[in-house]
């Protein structure tokens, strides 16, 4: 039996992008994945299940097998004929593929949007409003003595985050768990809250109020209420004291704050609190990004068009107006006439009415797996897994770029997103001439 071990493989599941996996390949399959969390193991041990095995085009009610060039041809014709297409997804592929996506969107006059719209979009809007005081995860590991998880549950969503970068990591200046104070703010006692030093229970949709109250307390203003967002005044004052008196504090915020009412305004207030705290001590803030390259999708789209998501290129110049040029809003207004989805499953993850409107229009999906979106598509093109079957650059949640490596061959005839998108772009350019 032939076996080979690959060291320091980068995990391509969540925004932690852990770079310490040890993968053993036996007879062409992954037999062991050391240091992988439950989500990572779920992917690595099953990446070959429910695969799209060949390109498909819709024939009435059924998807039938097609050659790669037939599928690309049909996709190119749909996109070239459309007046207002959406190009959506991008958070589970490489920066190189996203770069081609932007070029394609520009070429066909489409909307380039990524999954940020349904995760940290409000966070980005907040950062554009207020500015962000941030750092790398390495600095948190070595220096942070106060770690606050606000509306984030890393035990479930980023299982190795605490071990590698925060509470449980062994840093140069903070060697043990005792050297750090960990606080969780959430609407319920999550598994993350259970292993924190303290837990602050907040009423749903009241993040803005609590953040304002803490900011006021940090500014030494007196509050008139006994409770804000269900949290007693004493607890708020205590938290403000802990924040002001730490040496290096950080708030990691999750979707608990971006998806609740207030949305970008909640983040405005969190960023303002951090700005205020920096007058008294060192304080930082970072979003807990979900997919392994959603940060890359923002970075690439921003350096190519000037804006990080929801970029409308239909007028010949980039237009950015979330709420108007964002995928869910365009779909709810039923305005687009075709869509290209790359490495994402919006039919599963968009509000039902938006998903129905997406399924109504000619839909092209490039994805390694069978998903609800591929099953509703007009054209399906299977692709290789980035970071397993093909290489590519990705951005970790703190903006550090990593080179995801290939350690296994893709199935016969399956090529990378980059190759598919390059062919699609060439074909569209030929038709448009």
């Amino acid at each position: 039996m032939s076996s080979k071990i690959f060291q320091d493989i980068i995990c391509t599941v969540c925004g932690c992008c852990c770079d310490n996996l040890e993968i053993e390949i036996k007879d062409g399959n992954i037999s062991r994945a050391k240091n992988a969390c439950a989500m990572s193991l779920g992917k690595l041990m099953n990446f070959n299940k429910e695969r799209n095995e060949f390109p498909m085009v819709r024939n009435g009610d059924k998807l039938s097998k097609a050659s790669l060039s037939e599928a690309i041809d049909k996709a190119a014709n749909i996109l070239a004929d459309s007046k207002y297409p959406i190009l959506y997804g991008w958070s589970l592929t490489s920066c190189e593929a996203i770069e081609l996506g932007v070029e394609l969107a520009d070429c066909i006059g489409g909307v380039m949007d990524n999954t940020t719209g349904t995760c940290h979009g409000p966070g980005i809007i907040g950062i554009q409003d207020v500015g962000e005081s941030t750092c790398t995860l390495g600095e948190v590991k070595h220096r942070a003595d106060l770690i606050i998880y606000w509306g984030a549950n890393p035990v479930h969503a980023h299982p190795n985050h605490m071990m590698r970068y925060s509470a449980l990591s062994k840093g140069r200046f903070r060697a043990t768990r005792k050297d750090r104070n960990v606080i969780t703010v959430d609407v319920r006692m999550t598994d993350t809250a259970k292993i924190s030093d303290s837990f602050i229970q907040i009423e749903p949709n009241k993040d803005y109020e609590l953040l304002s109250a803490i900011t006021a307390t940090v500014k030494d203003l007196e509050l008139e209420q006994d409770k804000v967002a269900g949290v007693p005044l004493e607890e708020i004052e205590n938290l403000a004291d802990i924040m002001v008196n730490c040496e290096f504090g950080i708030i990691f915020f999750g979707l608990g704050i971006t998806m609740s009412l207030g949305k970008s305004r909640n983040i405005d207030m969190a960023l303002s609190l951090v700005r205020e705290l920096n007058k008294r001590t060192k304080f930082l803030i970072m979003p807990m990004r979900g997919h392994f390259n959603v940060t890359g999708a923002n970075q690439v789209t921003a350096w190519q068009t000037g804006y990080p998501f929801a970029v409308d290129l239909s007028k010949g110049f980039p237009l950015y107006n979330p709420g108007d040029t964002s995928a869910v809003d365009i779909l709810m207004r039923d305005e687009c006439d075709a869509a290209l989805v790359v490495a994402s499953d919006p039919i599963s993850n968009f509000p039902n009415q938006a998903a129905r409107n997406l399924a109504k229009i000619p839909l092209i999906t490039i994805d390694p797996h069978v998903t609800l979106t591929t099953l509703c598509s007009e054209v399906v093109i299977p692709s290789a897994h980035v970071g397993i079957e093909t290489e590519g650059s990705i951005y970790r949640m703190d903006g550090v770029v990593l080179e995801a490596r290939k350690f296994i061959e893709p199935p016969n005839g399956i090529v990378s997103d980059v190759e598919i998108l390059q062919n699609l772009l060439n074909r569209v350019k030929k038709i448009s001439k």
Partner: protein
Amino acid sequence: MKSKSLKVNLVTGRSLVQGRLKEQGKLSEDYLNNVACCELNQDDLNALGIAKGQNVKISTDSGSVVVKASIGTQALEKGMAFMPYGPWAEFLVDPKTHSTGMPTYKGINATISPAMKEKVLTIEEIIEIIRSK
């Protein structure tokens, strides 16, 4: 007799099992069993007169869906409900984005009632609904 119902605040989110299963495959029975569910507080289950594992119907201003009631490993206050991200929860999510691009996935007003006789939609049935013109 008027059927029992309960007003709750619904939060949708990631659960470790859902996170693992979305990577393993969304067409599996495991995915259906672990994602087409709604975690409730034991007192609220008692008030509805049902046991965990029985079906409930959840309704919001955006729609309604039948899923299995469960008790999660993470505590929930009375009056709160949690559903993992996925196509079942999407029937209930408010698509309004308030000029941010982000639908409201958390803190949604919902009503829950027992639905022992109703079935949980399969993935195939959901696709049929989504594709119906």
